């Protein structure tokens, strides 16, 4: 009997600490599989965020650095400039990347920093217990938006992929989801493409993964996937926003 599917060697043995059904786990796996399949894992250097994925440094089977909240793109820049041939990636949540780290991601993109960012958009601060993120939907409740996000008070959610796609050196930008197997397969393709773009030295690459937080959404994992599909995707349309073919 042949193995059809098993844990990639891109992942360490340690079980994830994520809540049951949290899609962070799926995304970790896709990143690890991509690195392994592209033969990059032994040369890869990853940067973990501050957020639920803070312990990502224990899960990937490659060298890792734990960055300050939001600063992963700057940290990764430091690493990549020292090791220009390594596959350098950041793994960041929406609080980390879109809120406190907004300047760092915009500037990594501007510089065309040859790194790959995996951006996990779950429309909430998971780690700290469900506060509003820049990506929280209008009307969505959060502990710091207990009456639901009010667009007149707190504005409308940031669409990071669309915003970064205006930056010339952000050469690969795609939004994917992991709410079913088909989308998981597509998500992996995008992640692989992003790493390939990096290794070709073309510029900055980012994959935004629309993700769940069953715990702080107050939903079962199955309900959460449904909510994602019905509420997140309409505001965060999936698709490719930039790719190298477009870039002259």
């Amino acid at each position, binding site marked *: 009997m042949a193995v059809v599917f098993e844990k990639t060697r891109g992942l360490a043995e340690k079980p994830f600490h994520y809540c049951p059904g949290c899609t962070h786990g799926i995304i970790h796996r896709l990143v690890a599989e991509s690195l392994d399949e592209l033969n990059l894992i032994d040369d890869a250097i990853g*940067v973990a965020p501050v957020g639920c994925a803070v312990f990502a*440094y224990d899960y990937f089977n490659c*060298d890792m650095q734990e960055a300050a909240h939001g*600063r992963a793109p700057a940290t990764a820049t430091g690493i*990549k400039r020292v090791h220009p041939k390594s596959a350098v990636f950041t793994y960041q949540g929406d609080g980390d990347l879109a809120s406190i780290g907004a300047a*760092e991601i915009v500037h990594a993109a501007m510089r065309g920093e040859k790194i790959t960012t995996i951006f996990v958009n779950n429309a909430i601060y998971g780690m700290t217990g469900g506060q509003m993120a820049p990506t929280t939907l209008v009307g969505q409740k959060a502990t710091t938006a207990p009456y639901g996000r009010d667009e007149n008070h707190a504005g409308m959610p940031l669409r990071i992929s669309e915003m970064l796609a205006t930056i010339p050196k952000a050469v690969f930008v795609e939004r994917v989801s992991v709410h079913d197997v088909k989308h998981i397969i597509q998500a992996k393709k995008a992640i692989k493409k992003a790493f390939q773009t990096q290794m070709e030295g073309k510029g900055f690459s980012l994959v935004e993964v629309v993700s769940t937080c069953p715990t702080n959404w107050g939903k079962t994992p199955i309900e959460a996937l449904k909510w994602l599909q019905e509420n997140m995707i309409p505001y965060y349309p999936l698709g490719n926003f930039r790719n190298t073919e477009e870039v002259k």
Partner: protein
Amino acid sequence: MAKELWKGNEAVAEAAIKAGCRFFFGYPITPQNEIPEYMAMKMPQIDGCFLQAESEVAAINMVYGAAGAGARVMTSSSSPGISLKQEGITYIAGAELPCVIVNMVRGGPGLGSIQPAQSDYFQACKGGGHGDYRLIVLAPASVQEAVDLVQEAFDIADQYRNPVMILGDGMMGQMMEPVEFKEVKKRSLPEKTWATVGTKGKRKPNVVNSLYIDAADCHNHNVDLFKKYAEIEKNEVRVDTYNVENAEIVFVAYGTTARIVKNAINSLAKEGIKAGLIRPVTLWPYPYKAIEEAAEKASVKAFMSVEMSMGQMVEDVKLGANGKKPVYFYGKAGGAFPTPKGIAEEAKKILGGAK
């Protein structure tokens, strides 16, 4: 090698390059702009990397990344920019990464002035960032000493896996003096087996990190750090003295202020007043012992800490003197500086009062 005239900032940059620094991440701010500008000019010629970061916050986190990746790396800024780096600095200290950080201090607080000051002493030496950690803080008093200390700073940083700060000021950065780039004695340094350079499939992943989620682990990490700090305190204290023998009053001053104090000492000497100087070269570890020994001297009637601040190092002088002799303070802040005359007069007042 013959002496050449160098501007402080450029000399510091060149010294870093001579010490093998090949990565510099910075952000413009007066009065240290010549450091990034020099790096921008030179790094491309020697296969190094100068990058202007989007902010001081980004710069220090680039330093974190590069240091974690095993490089010799430096950043520089001046007071407001250094305040912004505090989170990054404590991360670097917590993760035990070696790097060199230059602060050409200017007047504060807030936007303050852009003139030379020494009002970031507390921030540098006691912890501007959160948590228990220490920077090794070197305070050169001449461009030549800056050059020598910067070169050694990289070795010190690597030896202890600890960030080292060069605490200068606008005067140090802007002045020109003759400099000789001497061959600095290299320390024998441990290999950076902990750096994130890729596993190459040959070892377990290296992790650069300052998170210890379990309180007991975090406590132990702190205890380990403080063992290292004790080691540094034992090995690395540096202090320079001038005319302390038989001095009635001992000035304590560092950096450019110490030079002003020397002028004051010489002019006091002309009036027959014996004054001496203790000049800490390392601000942390602080030369408490030198102060203590002076405090025990019968001739010494008082100490006077002279600073371009409203009085910061004076607390360390007091800790060193430990009540054995009175400790006074004299200083100017916000970019103003004490004059030899002002210092001498203040000293006479104190000695008069002490009689």
